[in-house]
C-alpha cells in the first residue's frame, strides 16, 4: 500500500557527529547488521538515525513503542471491509517488504513478548513469518532494523532479554561535550554561540544532579527548547527556568538549586 518514496527523507536533517559514529553506522548498514542505539533521552538518538537514513538514501519507518503495543501492531492484522476481511501490513512488515530502515524507538517500553517477533528478522534468516496470514516475508536486501533505548530508567521490569540484546550491534550515545553541544544549540535555534554556551552550562549543572534527586539529566533537546524561547524574546533566565528546570523536577530543593545555578551562570 505504501510506496518507498513515501518514507524517504527529503531534507538533510541537522546532525553534528560526536565521533566516528557515522562511519561505523555506514559499515554496519553495508553488512546489514541490526543496530541498537543507547543513550539518555534527548541526546540525539532519533536524529542520528534520521540523518543516517537520509545519508544512505534509504526510506525510514519509525515506530514509537509503548506498553499497549501488541505483536499485531508491528506485524499487521486482518481488517474488515465491505467485501470481507483484508490483511493490513504493520510497519515492520512494510519495512521488510520495501527495504526500509525500520526504527523501533524506546523498544523497552514494548512488552517483552512483543519484541520477540523481531528475532527472525535480525539473524541469518532475515525473514518475518506472518502466522495469521500463513506467509513468510523474506526481507528486502536493503532492509535494516534499528532499535533505541534509554538505559537511564532501566529497571528489572524494563530491560531487554539477552536473546534480543545479542542480535544487535550497539552505539552508546551521551550528551555531546560542552563546546560541541553549544554549537548544536546555536545552530538549531539560531542564537549566539556565547549564549548557547551559557545555556549548556546550566544544563550541565542539572546533569550533575543525576542520581542525586534527578532520574535523568537536562537533555540537549531541552537546551534547544530554551534557546528557542530566547529567540522568541524571552529573557535567558526565564527561558532556562521554563525549559530546563520546571519540566524535569517537582522537588523544591532541586528547583531552588538550579534556579540559583541559573542566576550564577547568567550573572
Amino acid at each position, binding site marked *: 500500500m505504501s510506496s518507498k518514496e513515501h518514507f524517504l527523507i527529503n531534507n538533510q536533517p541537522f546532525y553534528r557527529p560526536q565521533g566516528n559514529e557515522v562511519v561505523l553506522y555506514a559499515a554496519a548498514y553495508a553488512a546489514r547488521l541490526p543496530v541498537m542505539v543507547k543513550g539518555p533521552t534527548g541526546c540525539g538518538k532519533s536524529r542520528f538515525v534520521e540523518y543516517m537514513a537520509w545519508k544512505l538514501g534509504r526510506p525510514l519507518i519509525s515506530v514509537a513503542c509503548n506498553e499497549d503495543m501488541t505483536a499485531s501492531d508491528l506485524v499487521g492484522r486482518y481488517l474488515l471491509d465491505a467485501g470481507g476481511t483484508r490483511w493490513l501490513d504493520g510497519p515492520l512488515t512494510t519495512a521488510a517488504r520495501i527495504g526500509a530502515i525500520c526504527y523501533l524507538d524506546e523498544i523497552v517500553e514494548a512488552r517483552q513478548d512483543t519484541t520477540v517477533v523481531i528475532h527472525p528478522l535480525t539473524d541469518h534468516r532475515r525473514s518475518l513469518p506472518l502466522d495469521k496470514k500463513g506467509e513468510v516475508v523474506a526481507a528486502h536486501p536493503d532492509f535494516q532494523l534499528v532499535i533505541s533505548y534509554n538505559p537511564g530508567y532501566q529497571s528489572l521490569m524494563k530491560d531487554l532479554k539477552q536473546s534480543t540484546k545479542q542480535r544487535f550491534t550497539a552505539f552508546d550515545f551521551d550528551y555531546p561535550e560542552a563546546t560541541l553541544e553549544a554549537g548544536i544549540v546555536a545552530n538549531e535555534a539560531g542564537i549566539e554561540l556565547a549564549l548557547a554556551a551559557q545555556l549548556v552550562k546550566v544544563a550541565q549543572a542539572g546533569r*550533575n544532579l543525576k542520581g542525586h534527586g534527578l532520574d535523568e539529566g537536562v537533555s540537549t533537546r531541552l537546551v534547544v527548547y530554551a534557546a528557542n524561547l530566547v529567540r522568541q524574546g524571552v529573557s535567558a533566565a526565564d527561558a532556562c527556568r521554563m525549559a530546563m528546570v520546571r519540566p524535569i523536577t517537582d522537588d523544591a530543593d532541586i528547583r531552588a538549586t538550579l534556579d540559583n545555578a541559573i542566576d550564577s551562570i547568567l550573572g
Partner: protein
Amino acid sequence: MPIGLRPVSDARARTFADPQVQAAWSALDCGFAQVADVFEECVKEALAVLSASQFAAYIEAARGLGKLGRGAEPILVFLQIWPTVVATVRGDALAPVLDLVRAMQKSPNGGAIAGFLQTLAPVARRLQAIEQLELYLGLLRELMQRTSTSIHGRHITFPSPSLPVFCRQAPQLLGLLSLGGLRNWVDYGILSHATHPERQEEYFALQSADSRAILQRERHGTLFADVERKLELWLRALWREGELLVPYSTAPLTHGEIRQPMPYYDSQGMRVPDVLDDAMRAGGRVSGLDRYRAVLAHMVGHRRWSTPQIADNWSPFQRMAVEFFEDCRVELLLIRDYPGLRRVFLALHPHPAAAGCDPETTSCLRHRLAMFSRAALDPDHGYADPVLLDYVARLHALLEGGAAGTADVAALALSWVAKTRRQSDQYARIHFTDTVIDYRDDNRQLWRFIEEGDEEEAFDEPRRRTPAEETVGLPPRRYAEWDYRTQSYKPDWASVYEALHPSGEAAHIDRLLQRHAALARQLKRLLDILKPQDKVRLRYQEEGSELDLDVALRSLIDFRSGVTPDSRINMSHTTAGRNIAVMVLLDLSASLNQRVADGGQTVLELSQEAVSLLAWAIDHLGDPCAIAGFHSNTRHEVRFQHIKGFSERWDEAVKARVAAMQAGYSTRMGAALRHAGHYLAARRADKRILLLLTDGEPSDVDVEDGAYLRADAKRAVDELAAKGLTTFCLSLDRKADEYVREIFGQRWRVLDRIERLPEQLPMVYLNLTK
C-alpha cells in the same frame, strides 16, 4: 555608735555644687556613699534624656529602691542604667519595671532585683521597642511565679532558682532568639525541670544539653539542618563536589573558648556554621542560604585551585597578606566560572572607607588588605591609591595569563607587603572595623609547617600513640520524645541500645510448633491461596479496561460469517503480586511473667507461641519479616533486641533466639516504635507493617505521668504513618480499651480471650495484608 541611729558619715550630708543635683539628692534621701559618688554624673545623663516629670519619677523610683533594705546595689544600678534604657526603647517603661520589682520584693525572690536591673540595659538594646520590653517583663514575672516553690501549701517559701541565672543570660539569649523563641525556651525549661532546682539552674545557665538543643531549635536565621540538602545539591550541581558538610556549633561560647570558630575544611569534610542569619549589609539583604553558598563556594575554590605553601619562613604579616591575595585569586576564578557569584561576594564583602584608618596611631595592615581585596573583586571600588590600583591590575594580569598558581600569587603578596610596609604595622592597636570577611574560611589548608615550633624540645618529642579504643556494642541511637504538655519534642531524649538477642534451644520452638500442628495445617491451606503471583493481563473479559482488538476482530468475523461470536472481547490488567514487609515488635517487659488468667501458661510463653507461628507463616508466604523485642530501664537505656533480621530465614538460629526470650524491666513504647520504624522504613515494599505485641500500656520507672508516655507512643505511631508504615497493635491486656484506642486509633485488637492468641495473630496479619 548607738544602735538604731544613722552613722555620722551618712552620705545624706553630702553637698553638690549644682542646685538641681542638690535638690535631687535631697529628694533621693539616700545614705549610701557609693551612690553619692556617682550621683552627679547620673543626674546629668538623666537630664539629657528625661523630661521634667520623667526625671521626678526617676528620682522617686530610685528613692524607693534605696529603701528596699537590699543594700546599695539596686539603687546604684538603677540610677546608672535607667537613662540608657529610656533612650533605647524610646518610651517610659518605669511603671511595669517598678511593678515587677515590687512583686520580687514581696516574694522570696528579692535577691534577684539587682541582677534583673543590671542586665536591663543590654536587654533593652536588643529589644529596641517598649512593647517588646513589656513582653520581656511579663516573661520574667511568669518565670518567677512558676518556679518559686512552696513546701507546704499556699505560701511560697523558696525563691526561684532560675530567675537570677536567667536574668544574667537574657541579653545573650536575646541576641540569638526572638522574644517568641525565648518564651518557648523558657516554657520548656520550666516544664521539664520544675521539680529539680539544680537541673533548672543548669538549664537556664545554658549548661545542660537539652537547654542547648532547645536553644538551637528556637534560633532565628537559616538553620543548616533545614538547608543541608539544598546545599549538597548545589555543590553537586555547580561544582561536582560530593563533600560531606559538617556543621559546627555557633551557640553561645562555653567557658574556655576564646573565639568563634570559622568555616574550614579538612579530609573529613567542609565545616560550616550550624546557623546563619540573614545579613543586612550595605549592598542589601543577603539571605542565610546565600551566605552558606558563599562560604561553600569559597572553600570549593580553595580545594580546586590552592596548593599548600610552606609557612615556616614567612612572618605572620606575610602569611596574612598571602591569605588575602589567595582568597581574592580563588574568588576571581570562581566568578569567572559563575559570574552571578560576584553579586553575593560583593554584598557580603565589607567596603572599608579609604580614610577609615589612621596609620599614625593604629596598625592598618588589615585595613589595607581588606581594601585590596574589595578592589580586586569590585570593579567600582572607588579607591584611588596608586599602589593598590597597581597591584590589583597585576593580580588581574596574572589571572589573565592563565596558569598562575598559589605560589605566583604568594610572590605578588610578598612584594606588596614589602612595598606598603609601615612602621605602625607593628602597633598593638589593630584596626578591625570593616576588615572581617566572614564567608571566608580560616585557610588552615593553605599552610604546611615543617617544624611544629621553635622550641628545642619539640624535636625530641616522642610520637604519641593512642591505643585503639575498644568498642563495646553499638553506640546508642537517640530519639526525640513528644511532650504533650509543651506540645513539643524533647530532643535526643531516649537512648536506644540495640543488640542481638541471646540464643537458647531451638528444639523448644519446634516442640511448640508441633503442639499446634493442627493449627499449622489449617494455616497452610490459607497461605497457599495467598501465595504471591505475578502481574497478569486478563484477556477474554466481558468487561475490562480496554478493547482487545484482535479478539474483537475475531468475534466480528465470526458474527459476519454467521457463527455465534465470543462476547468476551475486553481485557484488563491486575496486579496479583504481593510486596509486603513486616516487622514484629515484642514487648518484653516484666509484666509478661504474669500468668494467663485461667491457665498454667505465662503471657511470655503465649507470646512465644504466637511469634513462632506467625514467623513460620510469613516465611511460608515469602514476605520479608523481622522480629525484635524491647524493654526499657529509664530513658537512658531502652534495649532493642534483634531476634530475626529481614534477610534471615526462619531457621534454627532464629528459633533459638525466640526460645531464649525473657521478660524484664518496663515498656517505653515510643522509642522502640521509632527504632523499629527506622529499620522498616528502609525496606522497599508496597506495604510495610509494624505489628506490636504488648501486654500493657507504656510505662517506665522515670516517668510519673502515664499520659506522657501514652501521648509519646501516639505521636510515634503518627510519625510512622507519615512515613507510610502501618502500625497495628495486639494488646494482651483486657483493660486495654482505655488507652490502646488513644494510641493506635482503629488499628488495634484486644484479645479478650488471651489463649486464642496463636489463632488470632496470623489471622490479623492476613487481614492486614489483603
